[in-house]
């Protein structure tokens, strides 16, 4: 039986090899191994550094010891500590200027600068080689290679066989390119941003480890392997959010992210169990092959599977109601926010849904739920973003909102649009985050010089930075245009495709609409609603991004006289990634434009819609399901309305921000109140969701825990104590038999032997 | 070498013949051994005298040949002393216990090629036990009882010390003794002594070369087991009067003496059997016979003259070892007690363990290479035994030159001790100097 299965697996892999005969993967394991190598090397360096930093004798009772007596790398601790200006001020007083000498750094703090970006760039190079080969071959089936058998469970019902296998297809290739490419840039940025931090090697080790797990997530050929990556990135996210764990708040933020993610993971696990119970396999290829045959279209099982998967995705990708951890995750270093909490990890949910496109196509209800939740998240988070002052918080809510867009897309069955937006979002959001990092970096340095305790992240304290940070300004400006949906920047095309899909759905031209009709739901109204909401969200996006840019870069400079002298652009490691990402944000959109758009014809980008064609083999299964169930979309009538609306909304939002804010004399945080009226107050407090969760969930759990603790203390412990007391009394009583005389014991044994023998003989 | 065609001609003995011949062999062997032992005492005294350039016993009979008889008579007729504190029965039991194992061991040693008789072929071994070498090990380890008990029962502290020393020493060296024989098992494939002899014949090399390490260790251990110089600590005259038999007199004392010589004889015979081919005559192929295996005769046709010549061969080999025993007595001084223990536990035990491992590996390699016992290179150089021998001699060289490094084999103490002594001397000299200076000032 097992042999047969094995033979079958081999046959399919052989067939796969034949179909894409000219596609020969070039050492795809290297893509995984290189970041892992980086992690190991950097980890060793960090252990070495930690060893050396160990005190000779830890002083007792001196809470400030860490701050005072760590080796000289500590001196610039405050530079990285962007999220916590209070701590920064504290540190400051302790150090004084004398601690600022730039001594030569030990190898443990110089080597990671080469190792960490080096391995990533190498991995990117390997990925590019594979990409070029795939581009040339354009294989119709996925390239799967099992390196070794990881979890062979030979149970009687049907073996669970999970191999340590890599799956290379167009989707994972795309994700790999994004992860390694954007990751490389962010690693380079990190070199500039973090190199003064005492925990620099540790930081780089975590970052490498994260990339390794993220690549495992996208390259794994089965759900369990994906789950390994899924958990791994969760772990790294936790480690990096709480990177400056000496601050309570940072550690708490890490824990929050971890715990909220667990809820999602529970969903993921349940979905995997359901899948295995119903299909007997968890490998992508086999699942997609067996699912249409073994599960009913729109049935309860597939719907449940998809909903549970979506629960997992919601946790990881910060969707309602599990989005609360992401804004808090900004406690981590800014490059981390860019890489993990904007460009890659949080999009894992989108990847999961796209990867499971076949299943989601089979479950229209679940898909609709995904789309609705995504839409709700988009508009909800965008509205919160309107009234945030912390530059990273604004970007964080923007990320949540954009993730909502992606989920709306994949929920509506517009998988390509979702993935497209994922990609462009990775470009412009990474650019924005890195830009904000550059701004914070500059602000910090400036404030550091004057020992000011102003909040370096509050946009109200910035202003007019355009003159001091020109590169940052221009790159962030491009990214803002992109996210606001101004053509021809990347965000316009991807976002337009999403709203376009909703528009099509509202006109019943989406496969999902047909699918919903098949299970008896009229989807057109829903899709109309989605279109409207997404449009409003897009408008809000444009507005708050404009607001952020205006507060940060325009108007009067509000940092103060002395600080102003120290405002300047960072080193090339900080600006180069920005420029590259800005370029990507500018031109990334052309990957998937329709042929009708004039500029495409102009530049002759081939047939247009490159991404559509690229991803077609991956989504072929979903298409087949749709076709088999007669829900393949009708011919879409191109409509100018959504495009026009999108352009109008994007420009309108920016214009509104400009008219509302630029002429006003902007004030600093000390002067400007956080909110003015009730609506602003609610927005500022993020709709009190955290407080709600605290009241409803955290306190309830707390009460239950106390109740349980009481039960444990009095009932369980009482029983145990009673048992203990009983045995004590019994011991005292029976102890008398312990005479200490071996003969007596021997005699007792003898009696026992006699009895046993007697029983043996007489039965 | 084996002649298969002659199998039918050889007859096995009937049960009755077997029983009768066994009794005859027991009686004969016992008599011969006792007589030889008596003569050995004379031999020892003669050799001692020769080594010391004196005459030795020369009054009783021609050349002192009657001396053992005279000694025996004297011992029997002498008054027996019995210490008041001695533990009655054990005091008497001890000499007996010490003499028995020495004699019993002789039973398993084949002393000549099987002899053809009218009633069938008679194996020339008192008891061809299926557990030959193990029997030997078992009974040689029992010799210690007599000595320990003698020491204890005498109620004399010198005797007790001697007894304890003997016990510790014999137990220590028994391990090396047993381990050194282990290598032989690999090749012989059985534990019977006739098989040992036969294997040496077939292989064409005697085991003293093939298992050089085993030979050396067995020999050294046998000195320790017989309590002979340089291992005669249990009866070290200068330290313990005469050790465990201090309190014994007359025939009881004599029995210890007889036991010692019987032991020497047995051990020499064993050495001859195990390592010098037993009754095998060098370069003669006619004596190549094993005996009956499953009722079939294995080997050449036995003949009376072969039996006689092989017995002579055996006797000569044994005699050579006996003489060496006696020569060593007057050549090598006594070890110190810690040196004895060092040699036993720190050198011989690990070295013999290592030798077992290396030999096993070599045997495995040879067997895997398909080399047989009979194989000869250039027509006469035995391959199997030769390879093993070269490996073993190399190992022995390693043991002697690298492992010992003058620690135990040197008579002047260990390297560390010499260093310590030198340091001590230097310190004493410094103190002397100081006192001298102080005296001057």
């Amino acid at each position, binding site marked *: 039986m097992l042999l047969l299965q094995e033979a079958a697996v081999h046959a399919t892999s052989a067939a796969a090899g034949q179909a894409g005969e000219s596609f020969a993967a070039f050492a795809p394991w290297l893509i995984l191994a290189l970041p892992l190598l980086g992690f190991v090397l950097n980890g060793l360096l960090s252990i070495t550094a930690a060893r050396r930093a160990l005190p000779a004798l830890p002083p007792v009772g001196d809470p400030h010891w860490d701050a005072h007596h760590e080796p000289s790398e500590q001196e610039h601790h405050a530079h990285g500590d962007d999220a916590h200006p209070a701590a920064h001020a504290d540190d400051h007083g302790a150090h004084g200027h004398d601690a600022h000498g730039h001594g030569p750094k030990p190898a443990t703090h110089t080597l990671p600068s080469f190792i960490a970006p080096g391995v990533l760039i190498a991995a990117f190079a390997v990925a590019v080689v594979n990409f070029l080969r795939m581009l040339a071959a354009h294989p119709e089936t996925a390239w799967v290679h099992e390196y070794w058998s990881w979890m062979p469970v030979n149970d009687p019902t049907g073996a669970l066989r999970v191999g340590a296998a890599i799956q290379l297809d167009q989707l994972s290739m795309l994700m790999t390119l994004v992860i390694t490419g954007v990751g490389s840039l962010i690693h380079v940025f990190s070199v500039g941003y973090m190199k003064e931090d005492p925990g620099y090697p540790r930081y780089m080790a975590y970052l490498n480890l994260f990339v390794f797990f993220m690549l495992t997530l996208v390259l794994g050929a089965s759900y369990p392997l994906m789950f390994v990556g899924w958990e791994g990135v969760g772990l790294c996210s936790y480690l990096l959010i709480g990177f400056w764990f000496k601050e309570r708040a940072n550690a708490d933020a890490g824990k929050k992210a971890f715990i909220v993610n667990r809820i999602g993971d529970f969903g993921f696990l349940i979905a995997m169990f359901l899948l295995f119970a119903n299909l007997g396999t968890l490998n992508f290829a086999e699942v997609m092959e067996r699912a249409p045959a073994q599960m009913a279209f729109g049935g309860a099982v597939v719907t449940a599977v998809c909903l549970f998967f979506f629960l997992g995705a919601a946790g990881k990708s910060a969707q309602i109601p599990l989005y609360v951890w992401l804004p808090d995750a900004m406690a981590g270093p800014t490059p981390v926010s860019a890489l993990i909490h904007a460009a890659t990890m949080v999009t894992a949910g989108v990847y999961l849904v796209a990867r499971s496109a076949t299943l989601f196509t089979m479950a229209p209800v679940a898909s609709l739920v995904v789309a609705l939740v995504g839409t709700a998240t988009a508009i909800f988070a965008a509205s919160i973003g309107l009234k945030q002052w912390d530059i990273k918080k604004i970007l964080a809510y923007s990320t949540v909102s954009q993730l909502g867009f992606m989920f709306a897309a994949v929920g509506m069955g517009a998988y390509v649009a979702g993935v497209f937006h994922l990609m462009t979002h990775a470009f412009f959001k990474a650019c924005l985050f890195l830009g904000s990092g550059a701004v914070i970096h500059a602000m910090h340095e400036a404030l550091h010089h004057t020992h000011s305790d102003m909040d370096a992240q509050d946009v109200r304290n910035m202003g007019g930075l355009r003159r001091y940070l020109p590169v940052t300004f221009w790159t962030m400006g491009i990214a803002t245009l992109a996210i606001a949906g101004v053509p021809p920047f990347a965000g316009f095309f991807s976002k337009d495709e999403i709203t376009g899909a909703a528009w099509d759905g509202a006109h019943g031209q989406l496969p999902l609409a047909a699918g919903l009709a098949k299970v008896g739901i009229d989807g057109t109204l829903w899709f109309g609603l989605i279109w409207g909401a997404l449009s409003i969200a897009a408008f809000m996006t444009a507005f708050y991004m404009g607001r952020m840019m205006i507060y940060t870069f325009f108007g009067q400079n509000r940092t103060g006289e002395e600080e102003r002298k120290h405002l300047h652009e960072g080193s090339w490691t900080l600006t180069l990634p920005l420029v590259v990402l800005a370029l990507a944000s500018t031109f990334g959109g052309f990957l998937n434009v329709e042929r009708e758009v004039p500029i495409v014809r102009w530049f002759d980008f081939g047939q247009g819609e490159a991404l559509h064609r690229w991803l077609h083999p991956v989504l072929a299964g979903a298409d087949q399901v749709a076709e088999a169930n007669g829900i393949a979309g009708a011919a879409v009538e191109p409509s100018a309305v959504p495009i026009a609306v999108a352009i109008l909304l994007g420009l309108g939002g920016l214009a509104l921000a400009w008219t509302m804010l630029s002429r006003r004399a902007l004030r600093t945080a000390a002067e400007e109140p956080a909110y003015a009226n009730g609506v602003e107050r609610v927005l500022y407090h993020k709709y009190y969701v955290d407080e709600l969760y605290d009241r409803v969930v955290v306190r309830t759990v707390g009460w239950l825990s106390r109740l349980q603790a009481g039960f444990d203390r009095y009932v369980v412990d009482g029983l145990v104590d009673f048992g203990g007391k009983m045995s004590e009394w019994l011991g005292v009583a029976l102890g008398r038999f312990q005479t200490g005389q071996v003969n007596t014991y021997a005699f007792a044994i003898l009696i026992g032997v006699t009895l046993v023998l007697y029983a043996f003989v007489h039965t | 070498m084996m002649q298969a065609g002659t199998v039918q001609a050889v007859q096995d003995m009937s049960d009755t013949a077997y029983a009768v011949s066994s009794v005859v062999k027991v009686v004969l062997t016992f008599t011969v051994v006792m007589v030889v032992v008596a003569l050995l005492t004379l031999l020892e005294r003669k050799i001692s005298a020769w080594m010391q350039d004196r005459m030795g016993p020369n009054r009783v009979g021609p050349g002192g040949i009657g001396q053992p008889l005279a000694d025996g008579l004297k011992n029997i007729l002498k008054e027996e002393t019995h210490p008041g504190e001695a533990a009655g029965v054990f005091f008497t039991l001890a000499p007996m216990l010490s003499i028995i194992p020495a004699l019993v061991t002789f039973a398993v040693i084949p002393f000549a090629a099987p002899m053809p008789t009218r009633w069938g072929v008679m194996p020339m071994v008192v008891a061809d036990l299926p557990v030959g070498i*193990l029997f030997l090990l078992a009974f040689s380890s029992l010799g210690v009882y007599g000595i320990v008990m003698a020491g204890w029962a005498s109620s004399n502290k010198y005797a007790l010390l001697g007894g304890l020393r003997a016990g510790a020493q014999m137990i220590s060296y028994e391990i090396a003794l047993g381990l050194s024989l282990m290598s032989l098992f690999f090749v012989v494939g*059985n534990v019977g002594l006739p098989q040992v002899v036969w294997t040496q014949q077939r292989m064409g090399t005697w085991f003293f070369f093939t298992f050089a390490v085993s030979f050396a260790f067995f020999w050294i251990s046998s000195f320790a087991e017989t309590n002979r110089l340089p291992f005669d600590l249990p009866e070290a005259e200068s330290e313990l009067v005469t050790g465990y038999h201090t309190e014994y007199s007359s025939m009881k004392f004599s029995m210890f003496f007889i036991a010692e010589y019987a032991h020497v004889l047995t051990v020499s015979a064993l050495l001859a059997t195990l390592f010098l081919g037993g009754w095998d005559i060098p370069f003669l192929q006619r004596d190549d016979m094993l005996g009956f295996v499953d009722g079939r005769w294995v080997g050449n046709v036995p003949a009376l003259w072969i039996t006689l010549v092989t017995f002579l061969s055996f006797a000569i080999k044994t005699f050579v070892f006996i003489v060496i025993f006696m020569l060593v007595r007057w050549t090598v001084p006594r070890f110190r007690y810690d040196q004895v223990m060092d040699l036993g536990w720190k050198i011989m035990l690990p070295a013999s363990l290592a030798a077992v491992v290396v030999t096993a590996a070599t045997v495995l390699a040879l067997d895997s290479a398909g080399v047989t016992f009979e194989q000869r290179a250039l027509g006469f150089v035995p391959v199997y035994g030769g390879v093993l021998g070269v490996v073993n001699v190399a190992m022995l060289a390693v043991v002697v030159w690298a492992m010992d490094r003058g620690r135990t084999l040197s008579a002047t103490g260990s390297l560390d001790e010499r260093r310590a002594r030198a340091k001590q001397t230097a310190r004493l000299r410094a103190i002397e100097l100081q006192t001298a200076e102080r005296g001057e000032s």
Partner: protein
Amino acid sequence: MIILFWFFAVLAVSSALLTVTRKNPVASAIWLIATFFCLAAIYTLLGAFFIGIIQILVYAGAIMILFIFVIMLLNLGNDYEPDIRGHVWKVVAGGTSLVIAALLARAFSGELPAPLGHVAGPASLAAQTADRGTVGVIAIPLYTDYMVPLQFTAVLLLAAVVGAVVLAKRKV
């Protein structure tokens, strides 16, 4: 054979009794050695040559030497204290022991369970001995079927050696 067996059996039982009843530990030890010799003889009569010789080699040659050694080292043999318990104990213990012996004899004399073991099966010992040799008959199952117990025994012995050294050492 039978006669020999009975001879050694009677000898074994009487020396065992003497072992138990002698006041002098050395005497006890000597009688115990005698018992072991008788048992070795009986083993040989039963066809277990190897076990018989091992009995002498290990029990008589090593273990009992150790006992005697310790007795002498502690000098217990000369002025021994009487250590046998009172008459009540003797009677009760003797009675119990007799009951045990009777029960055991009863258990053995009844319908004995079918031979256990699939390893070598109930093939006659003599045939196996002829086939593999005296030592091989034990060695082959020992190094194949019982390899793991053998290794454990080796470890146990090593532990015992180390333990004994540590315990008996004056200064650790």
